């Protein structure tokens, strides 16, 4: 895959010199990133490097201390109320721990965002949409199960289905394959690729799984010590190995 092709397409996410600290802890120190329409961008970085913090800024769950985050040409920090909701409806966010609603079964989990955002839908339309989203993630038979009774991989897929039901233009995945076995991981990877094709989304995928990054993403950004060390295609990033990047490579492919 070629990154140059994407440079010509419009900018979807633009992060400009972003800083973020929690108390004394400086997590992000001058982040710059551009994600273009239709591409999948992976963000790699070790645990605690601030990947989740960064992706949460893209949807306004956290605000930067300094710098700007533009999504679909709007600065997230300046949006409030209805405007922020309108932007969030165009973005799907898959949480690291799935964040399914414990008190609702799978059907209700998927129907909830739909019902709350589109008041006039009929029962048939809702169950059709739920069905469609469940088919997309390959879990049609689980409608009546409670989240507590699902496996980790199934929870991740239901979490993804819950965001797909609102037909987002942008998908943000926070570690879609972490804690899963290689077989389930590769199923999730295939799902991410098929979501990109079918729903024509632009995606940001946070991961420390290089297979996931290689299979699903057009470009990769490596987050080290609060800033991006390298941004480019998989080959560009991993051909010139540095002390900071090679540990990832070694862990994923040599071990």
């Amino acid at each position: 895959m070629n990154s140059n092709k994407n440079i010509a397409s419009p900018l979807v996410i633009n992060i400009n010199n972003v800083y973020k600290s929690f108390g004394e802890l400086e997590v992000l120190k001058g982040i710059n990133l551009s994600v273009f329409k239709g591409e999948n961008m992976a963000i790699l970085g070790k645990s605690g490097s601030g990947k989740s913090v960064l992706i949460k800024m893209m949807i306004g769950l956290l605000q930067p201390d300094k710098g700007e985050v533009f999504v679909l040409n709007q600065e997230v920090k300046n949006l409030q109320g209805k405007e922020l909701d309108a932007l969030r409806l165009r973005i799907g966010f898959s949480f690291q721990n799935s964040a399914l609603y414990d008190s609702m079964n799978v059907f209700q989990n998927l129907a909830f965002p739909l019902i709350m955002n589109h008041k006039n839908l009929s029962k048939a339309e809702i169950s059709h949409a739920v069905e469609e989203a469940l088919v997309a993630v390959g879990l049609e038979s689980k409608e009546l199960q409670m989240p507590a009774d699902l496996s980790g991989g199934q929870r991740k897929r239901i979490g993804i289905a819950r965001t797909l039901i609102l037909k987002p233009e942008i998908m943000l995945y926070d570690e879609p394959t972490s804690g899963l076995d290689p077989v389930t991981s590769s199923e999730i990877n295939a799902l991410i690729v098929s979501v990109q094709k079918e729903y024509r989304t632009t995606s940001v995928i946070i991961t420390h799984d290089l297979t996931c990054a290689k299979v699903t993403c057009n470009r990769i950004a490596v987050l080290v010590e609060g800033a991006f060390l390298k941004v480019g295609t998989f080959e560009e990033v991993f051909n010139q190995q540095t002390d900071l990047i090679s540990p990832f490579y070694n862990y994923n492919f040599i071990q």
Partner: protein
Amino acid sequence: MLVKQNKPYVINKKIDSYFDGVYHAFKFVKRFFAQVIRPPFHFKEVINQSYEIGIKSLSLITLTGFIVGMVFTKQTRPSLEDFGATSWLPSLIGIAIVRALAALVTALICAGKVGSSIGAELGSMKVTEQIDAMEVSAINPFKYLVVTRVLATSLTIPILALYCSFVGLLGSYLNVYGSEASSLTMFYKNAFSDISFLDIFASVVKSIFYGFTIGMVGCYKGYYATQGTRGVGKAANEAVVLSMFLIFVEEIIIVQVSNWIRLY
């Protein structure tokens, strides 16, 4: 580079953070009033929550109310007998239960039962990012979770308190019947002879305040839970302690105010 300097404290760290907490809590209450009047209204969820609260506490309130009424009567009887004034018993019990005990007993039971479960439920939703998940799908979690629960407790607890006075009087009647065999209607007539509309009204108003407090404190503690599963237990626990404390404070204030109204 961002250089963080140590935040200077106005008085000292502890006192500052205490007032910070009070300020935050008031902002939370203000947010409730700002949102409760704006659509969308989740009536169905308010009904669901009210039903939950009722189901959760009904058996305990029945039992406690009944026993309080019965025991209170039994213990009061000897003192009245000394003066040969046992005929005053029903009206005395009526005043004690309707004016004071029912609302307080109901509030304390609900603080334990309902307050802790709201704190734990919202706390676990917070630490497992379910509240964030609502936010990112453009659902207002404050409105859907907090406003509905506070409305539900403010509506349900007064009803439970009235029910508690009814059951309490029933328990008291059982004791009276054991020694005097008066009829139930006669008993209720005597019991309510000294109770004015103001008493019942004040008791309902009091319960609305208690209900509001229980819902608000439970939601506040849950909504700002931190530190994973440990935080959930902490939220539930703090919700009970703080709401009980506030209920006693409110009791003192409301009794003063209603006595004052009674005098004029």
